[in-house]
Each structure stands twice: as structure tokens, then as C-alpha cells.
């Protein structure tokens, strides 16, 4: 089918104004939250209902046209980029279909914004626990595709732990359901496989998520350290003490200074080597005893001081600095490379030292802001992407940082996904046999490799890849090879 004919047919499903094909209109879809990649879709289509999503996918399946599902485009791995293939934007599907406070469940369309679900649940004393930094913009559909995390996942778990059912359209156009909201369901955990499949296993039509009761009491602490090492020791000791903080975040000197010189200034000590933002929540009784214990642990580890927020306004301000840290770094340079890796908790001091050495060697500035309690690092590098020499040094430093994390038994992504950006690291953490098996799993969901081609698993890892499955699919996967 010619591209004009495809555009007409898509238009007949969703309405002509919801199909975009002019270069100028497609420009905004050329990137996601990660700088450095620009890929232009052939067309962008914006279905407004579940039935339209199904009809669009069925048309594309029939015509063997590859596609990329996209939510808010806040992803940080290039996963939502469509390289010459059709982009399906799901941000018109924003209905909260059902909210069942008695069972603490919500059924939402994929385009519902993460934070707006929590706002809707608030009246029932509930919230949606996974809280990525982009929660004001990112969508539940995107969160499901990426198995998104966030600071409060330390205590409450990641997206996977909160999704109980998904209705989806598979890349071949079949509508199916995974998981169940109404009791246990036997069989393979296809829901578990779907969550975090980065849009390669189909498109979610609706998602049933678990809602979490709002904590009855919350205490937020800021501990101030003169070395990253001491902050890392306090992290390990807190968790080993049998206290599970709701969140335990670390920010280093570079991040503190970026935040404090921005409009998000939170009152962090600008001469500290690191701060820990620690939140304890739960029942009111005994909570202050846990606070005392954590303060003592931080002091034993060498904290210069520990401040406990005395009001909701102070608490919000402390968090604002953390949540907007990436934005604050935007003031330092034109581009920001946000990295994501996970290391065993006890390796944090080693790895932080390695990262500092790597940054120095390459003459780049690393700002660390991360989920210390989980060992989930975000070493970020502000840089000017228009300067080829800077770009090269940033990429070289990032590669070495990833290798350092892998060397201590870590992994290359804890919550951002592989997307396009991390394809090259996959063979460093998985054997060829494991990668090949992932390809075969993908083929079970998407035999024609139409959904988000060229992402997650390097195409050359797929043993029986013939190099040509369909014109569109091969176009998309060229980026990966």
C-alpha cells in the first residue's frame, strides 16, 4: 500500500485530522527525553478510542507495516522513536474507566497521566505508588511499557508489582487480556512478560492497577555528608536495620549545586559532598522512633547534620529539589544525558569512586542523583551536543560507567529500559543463547516483528533473523544493527 493510501485509510479510522504526515508536524516526535537521537516517523496517527486503536493496529498488521506506540514521549532510552515507521500516539486515551476504592483498583486508558491517577484516587485516601520523576507528564501506558520505577519504589515496588491486568491488542491485531483483577489466574505470566516489553509485545488498551493507601504519617529527612562514601554507608546501614524507608535518595555535590542555583532551590547544603533524602512513612505510632534510629545511623556514618522537615511545605520543598533535579541541570548546559544503571547496594562506594575517576579522565561533569536504597544510579552529564568533541567524550565516559557497573555485578538499566540507546550493552549482560531466546519470545508475541522494531534486543542476536521480514520492519531495525 502506498503511503498516501495508508494515510487515507488511517484517516478513515481516526479522522483525517488525527493523522500527521508533514515533516513539520512530525518534527516534535523525532525525539524523546534522551538527547542525541533523532528519528522521524513516516506518519503519526492518534486514535481517540480503544476501538480505533484496535482498528489501526489491525490495518497495520494486515499491511505488514511496522509501528511504534508512544505515550508522552518522556522516555530516556529512545524507546519511543519511530524510524521511518508509523507512530501510534496514545495520549488521547485519557479516561479513568473505573476506580474501585473498596478493592483498591483502578482501570485506566493508556494515555492517563501518572500523577493525575493519584490525584483522582486521593479523595479515597489512595494513590498510585510508582512515581517516576516525569510523573507530571508520563502516562500509565508508557510506565507499563517501560516497567517504570521512581523514588518510592524502594518500599512500594515498581510498575510490575502494581499492574494486575492489561487488555491489549497484539501486533497481529488480536485483542487479548493478561492477568486478572478478579482473583488469581493460572497459566503463564504473560502480564509479567508484557510489562516492561517496551512496546514490542503489543499496545495496551486499558490497564488495571493496584492503588495504595496513603500513609497515615510521613517524615522526610535530609542528611548532609562530607563524603559520598559516608552517605553510601548510611544507606546500607539503614536498610540492614530492618527499616524500609519509603524512599532513600542520594544527590551529590554537582546535583546539589545545580538545584540550589535554580528556581527549585530546596535549601540543600551547597558545601556538602552528598545529601540523602530519606522518607519514612506508615502508621503514626513508632514512626518518630524510626526517625531517631535513622538519624543515629546517619550520624554514626559521619553525617554533619540531619534535618527533619517540620511542615508539609518544608517536605514538599525538599522533594521539589530532587524531582526537578534534571530540570535544574538543564541550566548548566544545552543537553543532559540521563543515565540509568543498578549496582548491588554494597558496591555503591566503589562505583561512585569509579564514576568520579571516569568523569575526570574524560573531562566531563557528572551529576549524580539517584535511588540509593535500590542501588539504582543516575549519573547524568550536562553537555553541549552541538560540540562533536564534547559529544564524543560524554559517550566514551558513559560507556565506561556502564562497564564499571557491570563489572561489580550490576545491570545497565533499572527503570529506563534498553530502547535504542542501550542495545549495544545487551551482549555484555546476556549470553547469546539468552538474547536469542528473548528474540524467540518476541516472535511469539509478534511473529512479523512489526511492533517497535529494532529495540530492546540487538537484531543480530536473533539467530534465525533473515534480515528481511518486511520492508518497514527492516527499515526500523537498521538503527539497531
Amino acid at each position, binding site marked *: 500500500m502506498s503511503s498516501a493510501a495508508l494515510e487515507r485509510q488511517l484517516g478513515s479510522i481516526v479522522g483525517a485530522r488525527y493523522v500527521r504526515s508533514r515533516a513539520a508536524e512530525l518534527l516534535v516526535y523525532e525525539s524523546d527525553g534522551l538527547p542525541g537521537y533523532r528519528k522521524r516517523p513516516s506518519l503519526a496517527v492518534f486514535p481517540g478510542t480503544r476501538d480505533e486503536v484496535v482498528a489501526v493496529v489491525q490495518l497495520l498488521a494486515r499491511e505488514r507495516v511496522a509501528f511504534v506506540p508512544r505515550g508522552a514521549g518522556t522516555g530516556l532510552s529512545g524507546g519511543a522513536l519511530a524510524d521511518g515507521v508509523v507512530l501510534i500516539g496514545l495520549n488521547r486515551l485519557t479516561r479513568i474507566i473505573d476506580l474501585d476504592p473498596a478493592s483498591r483498583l483502578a482501570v485506566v486508558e493508556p494515555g492517563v497521566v501518572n500523577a493525575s491517577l493519584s490525584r483522582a484516587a486521593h479523595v479515597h485516601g489512595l494513590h498510585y505508588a510508582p512515581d517516576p520523576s516525569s510523573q507530571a507528564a508520563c502516562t500509565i501506558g508508557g510506565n507499563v511499557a517501560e516497567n517504570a520505577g521512581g523514588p518510592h519504589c524502594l518500599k512500594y515496588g515498581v510498575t510490575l508489582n502494581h499492574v494486575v491486568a492489561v487488555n491489549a491488542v497484539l501486533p497481529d491485531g488480536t485483542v487479548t487480556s493478561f492477568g486478572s483483577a478478579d482473583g488469581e489466574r493460572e497459566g503463564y505470566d504473560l502480564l509479567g512478560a508484557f510489562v516492561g516489553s517496551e512496546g514490542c509485545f503489543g499496545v495496551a488498551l486499558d490497564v488495571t492497577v493496584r492503588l495504595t493507601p496513603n500513609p497515615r504519617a510521613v517524615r522526610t529527612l535530609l542528611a548532609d555528608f562530607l563524603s559520598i562514601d559516608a552517605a553510601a554507608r548510611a544507606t546500607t546501614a539503614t536498610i540492614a536495620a530492618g527499616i524500609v524507608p519509603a524512599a532513600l535518595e542520594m544527590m551529590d555535590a554537582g546535583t546539589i549545586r545545580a538545584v540550589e542555583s535554580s528556581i527549585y532551590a530546596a535549601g540543600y547544603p551547597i558545601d556538602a559532598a552528598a545529601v540523602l533524602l530519606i522518607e519514612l512513612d506508615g*502508621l503514626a505510632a513508632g514512626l518518630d522512633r524510626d526517625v531517631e534510629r535513622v538519624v543515629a545511623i546517619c550520624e554514626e556514618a559521619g553525617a554533619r547534620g540531619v534535618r527533619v522537615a517540620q511542615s508539609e511545605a518544608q517536605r514538599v520543598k525538599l522533594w521539589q529539589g530532587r524531582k526537578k533535579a534534571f530540570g535544574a541541570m538543564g541550566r548548566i548546559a544545552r543537553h543532559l544525558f540521563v543515565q540509568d544503571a543498578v549496582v548491588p547496594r554494597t558496591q555503591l562506594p566503589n562505583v561512585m569512586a569509579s564514576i568520579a575517576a571516569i568523569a575526570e579522565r574524560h573531562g566531563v561533569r557528572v551529576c549524580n542523583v539517584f535511588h540509593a536504597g535500590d542501588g539504582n544510579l543516575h549519573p547524568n552529564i550536562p553537555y553541549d551536543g552541538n560540540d562533536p568533541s564534547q559529544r564524543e567524550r560524554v559517550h566514551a565516559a558513559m560507556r565506561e560507567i556502564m562497564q564499571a557497573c557491570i563489572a561489580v555485578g550490576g545491570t545497565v538499566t533499572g527503570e529506563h529500559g534498553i530502547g535504542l540507546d542501550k542495545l549495544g550493552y545487551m551482549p555484555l549482560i546476556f549470553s547469546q543463547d539468552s538474547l536469542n531466546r528473548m528474540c524467540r519470545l518476541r516472535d511469539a508475541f509478534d511473529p512479523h516483528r512489526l511492533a517497535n522494531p529494532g529495540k530492546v534486543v540487538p537484531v543480530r542476536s536473533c539467530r534465525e533473523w533473515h534480515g528481511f521480514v518486511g520492508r518497514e520492519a527492516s527499515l526500523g531495525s537498521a538503527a539497531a544493527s
Partner: protein
Amino acid sequence: MTQVAHPASASAAGTVTHAASSAQVQEAVRDAAARGDVLRVVGAGTWLHAGRPVRAASSLSVRALAGVVEYVPGDLTITAWAGTTLEDLDRVTAEHGQWLALDPFGLREGTLGATVATGSLGPLAASFGTPRDVVLGLQCVTGDGEIVHGGARVVKHVAGYDLVRLMTGAWGTLGVLTMLTLRLRARAPVDATYAVSVAAPLREWIPAYRAASVAPLATELLNGATAAALGVSNGTTALVRVSGNDEAVAAQEKALAQLGSVRPVSNDTWAALARRDPARPTAALRLSHRAARVADVWELATALARDVPDAVVHATLDRGIARVVLPRISEADLMTRLRPPTECARVCEVLPASLWQELAPSAVSDPLSQRVRAAFDPERRLNPGILGEA
């Protein structure tokens, strides 16, 4: 690797191959392929009497594939071979004030591999989740004899497709689990269990329980007979486990007292409940629905067990799951009780072999599940039939 005649099998054709390494598991699977044979995968053997319709005379035992591979207590993760027993893991982790928060019903002599392969859960699932929430990484041998791994040894990981979730609860039909990495929990300073009498009708009691200032690790509702057998009380009882510092626990004890008469009991009561299952019951099954419907689920479960001697009925309130164990019941009686359709979901653990197909239709007969099976075990060499599939 050793091969011996099957000790428990009446059909003398069957042999048991004992593998003590991943390479030996791989070799056994490849040998079976060369012979055109299929294999039943076995750990401690605690599931052999569940009546599941496995079509395999030969067995592959991973019981000897045991031991801890890596344990750094500060990381709160542990990597162990699949044949390691839960009690061995309990012992190793307890030395560091930690625990594996998986407490499936049955014996702690059961293996880690079987717990994950069957997706078995217990009361702690209410707060810590099921095996799918606890397993971080794994290694397995696929049905065509390749060693594959998924996940990682760290607590957060989203690289690649999630083979961990797929293998968990797949009953060994996608791969023989050989090694697992699990998330551990640090023990809180105080960990206490209370028996709370449920005198009010359950429909009234549950909203009060949910509104109470308690954050239990586990809350298990017991029928009167089970509560009596455990020596905690004589009527319907909620067994509630709370933890934290002493102030937090004391306040929760007070909050529980608003719900009924409260008595502190030993934490060993949980192990006693897990062991309460008769050795070879005729049937064991779980009924479930969304949490708000748990009173309906409980009614159905108690009705199902009515007048069955020594029936065990208990429910994980916060997950909306009730479990019924019927020690001795005729097949005809069982059919009468289980045949009528209900609104509840039903998962069978143990059934008479002859009733399995009718009462527990396969949940993996859909085309996608079949394609997934084919991606990992194209010849259906591992545990064929165990999920009721043709």
C-alpha cells in the same frame, strides 16, 4: 549425574536422573531429546501427589543441585541453586537477621525451584508479594537444552524481556530452573503475631479491619477447626502478624483489640499453619476474587468444606484468596461440590488424577501461550501435560 530406577513409580520404565549442576541438567535434557523421551522435573517431590496429569515416565531431579551460590547480606539478595530447600535458606539468612519472605503452605523441606516454578504463595504474600515479586533473576535450561538466564542479581532490573516472570509459575514447562536470585528482607526489631477473634459477621468485621491502624505483614483468617487445631482459639480467628519497633507493635496490638479479643501467640503458629496440610489430601484448592469480595470468597470456601472431616479453610484477606484443603472426600462428593460454576476464580493445587481434566481446564491452551511454550520448549519435553494442556 546418576540414573536410578524410579523409586515411586509403578511403571518400571521410568528412571530418575539426578543432576547436580546446570551442565548436568543440560546434559539430561539433551539426552532425553536424543532418546525422544520427555521428562518430569522434580525437586523434593512434594508435588508428586498432586494428581497433575503429567505424561512422563522419566524424571529429572534437581534436588542435588543445592546450595548458596552468592550471598552478600548488605545487598539483601541471595543466589542459590534451585534444589536448595527453603529451610536451608531460612537458616543461612537468619544468621544475618534476614529472611526470605516466601512462606508457601506445606513443608520447608520443599525446594526453592519448586516454590518458584509453581508460583506458590503463603500468608506473607499479603505484604511481600508472590514469587513473581520476590525473584530477581534466574538461570534455567530450556526444553531444547540451552542454558538461559533472565533478570539480574540486583533489586531493580529492566534490561531485556522478562524471562523471570515468564518462568515463575510456569510449572517447569518453559525451562528447568537451575539457579535463582531472590530479594531478602531485613528482620524488624519486633515481629509479633496475634490471634484476633472474629465474632462479628465477616462482612462487618472486614471494613473495621481495613480501617484499623494496623499495617500487617500477614493476616490469615482461619476457620474454627483450623484455629482449634493450632491451639489459638475455638472460633473463626484472624491470625495477624505485625512488625516494627516496640512502640509501633504495641499500638497495633491496641488497634487489633478494637476488632475482637486479642491474644499474642507464637510466630511459630505460621509454620504450624503451613504444616497443617494433611500429607496426601484428596483435594486442595484456592478460591479468589478482588479484595472487596473476600467475604463472598470465604462463604464459598466454608460451604465447600462443610461436613468434610478435618477440612482446613483459611484466607489471605488482603489478597482476596481463600484456601480449602479436604483431607478425605469421595470423588463423587468432590464433583458435586466443585461442579457448579461460581463467580470466584479457582486454582487447584491437589485433585484426584481422574478429575483433573474436568475440574481444572488448561490455562495455556490459547494460541499465544502455545507459541510461548514453543519458543522455550518446542518439543514439549518438560512436564508435558502438567498444565492440563493436550
